[in-house]
């Protein structure tokens, strides 16, 4: 981490949730490299980092998810025990049932962290992710790193 070059971000100011949370559709974007058994695993050997993402459908059974994050800097045991730690779709169902959020998005997204070559992420895959979330009329996003 010491040699990782962080860069400050630029983003459009003035964006915020425009309706009450209880009426808002929220998506989860995780960087825990989670995927379903039928999806291709993330590839930790890609130069500059694997910028791809997987769609995790709302009705995915969490216990079937696999995690292929190559980092050894975090304990993978928590996620193995409970994928809600980084892809909390079961929590979202509870919050929806309690009326605290309006809806859980039909598609949540899973990336792998550790991106050393950000251009492809910014210009291609994150832009595709934004399109999916806009198609699903998502009002706000919870980002969960590991």
């Amino acid at each position, binding site marked *: *981490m010491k040699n990782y070059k962080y860069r*400050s971000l630029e983003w459009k100011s003035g964006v915020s949730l425009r309706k009450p949370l209880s009426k808002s559709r929220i998506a989860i974007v995780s960087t825990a490299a989670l995927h379903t058994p039928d999806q291709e695993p993330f590839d930790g050997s890609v130069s500059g980092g694997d910028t791809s993402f997987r769609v995790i459908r709302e009705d995915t059974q969490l216990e079937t998810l696999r995690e292929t994050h190559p980092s050894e800097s975090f304990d993978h045991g928590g996620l193995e025990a409970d994928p809600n*730690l980084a892809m909390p779709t079961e929590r979202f169902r509870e919050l929806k049932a309690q009326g605290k959020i309006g809806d859980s998005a039909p598609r949540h997204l899973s990336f792998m*962290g550790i991106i050393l070559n950000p251009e492809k992420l910014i210009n291609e895959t994150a832009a595709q992710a934004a399109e999916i979330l806009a198609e699903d009329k*998502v009002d706000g996003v919870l980002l969960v*790193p590991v």
Partner: protein
Amino acid sequence: MGLISSVLENHEIPTVSITLLKEVTEKVRPPRSLFVPYPLGYPLGEPHNPELQNRIIMRALSMLATEVDEYLVEDFEA
């Protein structure tokens, strides 16, 4: 993670991120972050603790209503 948030905000989708590393957040400066006092790999606290996980999620989501010009980091009080 910060890069994804900036792209989404530029598409006018508000984001809030859980963060486990406040010093990294203060360098990257994503729009909204909730710092949680847990180890790497445990962004929502503890496995199989729905009550704690839901409190963290709701605390983070409550930040989405805030328009941010600089960047906003708040602490989750466990």
